[in-house]
């Protein structure tokens, strides 16, 4: 089991391929024929007005949301399905959970487990998946807490921490499973302005670590600094995509220009 995971990690690095994905809630079309190719290890920032489908797209990437049409592949594996010949078989819950191990997710409102200490939050998933022994998990947790600068909070309860600290812990928790892809859903939107910087600094550290990052955010300055690609979405469609300089400095579309004028 563990050998299989090692093998996959050695050869797979988190290439994401989204092909013609659509998703509706009743009459409302949250995603409308979205296609996107993301290089392994790249950093992609998705921007757009609220309700444009950014978060929905992110949630489909680890199957928190089922798509109605289209396919999502990470390193060639279909998310939520298994391909045999020309048929896609829907995966059962267990297999979906196993796919999620490769995709870390950071929520807007942290969602740390309040009844577990910081350390317990971190070691919960690797132990549940038997990826690491308890001792190894605690060592790894210590390393990651060092990276986010919170080792001294290992025994604290999440509710005793500031928002910025909680989000840094949430990032460390997602990293515990060594995912190939990390998804950030507006990671700084629930934070007081003076706490935003500490969280963005942690994400910047990850940007060149080889993990593929997809970040939904309103922090345009941050996007300019770290993003390889910027994707601009409106009404469930991708309006414009390209390098950060191209999309943020010389947008081709009128809609993008209007949005940036309002945000900056």
């Amino acid at each position, binding site marked *: 089991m563990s050998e299989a995971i090692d093998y996959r990690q050695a050869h797979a690095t988190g290439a994401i391929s989204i092909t013609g994905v659509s998703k509706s809630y009743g009459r409302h079309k949250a995603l409308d024929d979205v296609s996107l190719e993301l290089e392994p290890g790249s950093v992609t920032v998705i921007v757009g007005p609220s309700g444009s489908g950014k978060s929905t797209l992110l949630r489909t990437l680890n199957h928190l949301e089922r798509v109605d049409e289209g396919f999502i592949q990470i390193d060639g594996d279909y998310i939520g399905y298994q391909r045999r010949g020309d048929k896609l078989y829907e995966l059962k819950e267990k297999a979906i959970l196993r796919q*999620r191990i490769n995709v870390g*997710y950071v929520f807007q409102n942290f969602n740390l*487990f309040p*009844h577990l200490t910081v350390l317990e939050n971190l070691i919960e998933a690797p132990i*549940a998946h038997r990826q690491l022994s308890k001792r190894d998990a605690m060592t790894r947790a210590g390393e990651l807490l060092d990276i986010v600068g919170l080792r001294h909070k290992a025994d*604290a309860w999440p509710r005793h921490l500031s928002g910025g600290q909680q989000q840094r812990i949430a990032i460390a928790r997602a990293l515990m499973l060594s995912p190939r892809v990390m998804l950030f859903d507006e990671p700084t939107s629930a934070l007081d302005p003076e706490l935003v910087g500490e969280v963005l600094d942690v994400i910047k550290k990850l940007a060149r670590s080889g993990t593929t990052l997809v970040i939904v955010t309103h922090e345009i300055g941050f996007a300019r600094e770290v993003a390889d690609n910027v994707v601009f979405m409106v009404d469930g469609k991708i309006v414009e995509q390209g390098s950060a300089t191209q999309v943020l400095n010389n947008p081709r579309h009128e809609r993008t220009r209007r949005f940036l004028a309002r945000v900056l």
Partner: protein
Amino acid sequence: MNRDHQHLKVVPARYPARTIGAVVALFILAGVVESVALNPRWEWGVFARWFFDPVILHGLGQTLLLTLLGTVFSLIFGGLLALARLSSSWLLSSLAWGYIWLFRSLPLIVVLIILYNFSYLYDTLSFGVPFTALAWGHFQTINVLGQFPAAVIGLTLVQAAYSAEIIRGGFLGVDHGQMEAASALGLSATRRTFRIILPQALRAIIPTAFNEIISLAKGTAMVYVLAMPELFYTIQMIYNRNQEVIPLLMVGAAWYLIITTVLSVIQHSVERWLARSVTRDAQPSRWRQWRSRLNPVAANEEISHVRSH
């Protein structure tokens, strides 16, 4: 400027009406205590003679056993019903809803009497697969469903319907993000439920659950219809014989008071323990305080992280 304020004295506000109210209340309380203690018709001598009588203690034992079994079985069964109710399977959740609807509608006394007369409805009970000849055992209903099993089953069936709703309420109270976060980490459904959601749901479940346990402890008196000698039935039997109605009822009342008090104390400590991750600087539990007096250094180290910020 500051120095000018140093000689100023702070005078707390006074509320004379509160003081008068408190004095009046104490006066009334003293009057009640005096009348209860000194009126010979309360017959405290009879009360004292019967309080630890073996017959009463046996009845008390039955009441406690019924409460314990009723609580344990109804929480397990109610938990399963709650999970069925929350299940995404339409059939399971409707069946659970139907069960809860039925047993919240039927009075406990009706359920108990039906169970006690089950041998009239069905002579034998078989253990096997329905609609086939397959069976591993046949039992005479009258031998299996005696007073005690009938009482336990009756209490469990009814109590489980209420427990299910309490547990379901607790689960619904936990923020949906917790379930999503657990899913995103790839935790299995069982682990999500028992490790992540249930411990948080308990904080909402515990106060109402203890309400139910306390009313169950007193509600066991209902099994007198099965002529089962639990505490209340025993007391009735005795005062029917010796006509000392009031002192014997007082014996029962005092024992129920003690049971409820013990349960309340347990509830209080369980709630404190569950609240440990929420309260900012919680007082250490009695046990910790007592231990820290014996070994001050160790106890200090343990709670230091809470205040280290």
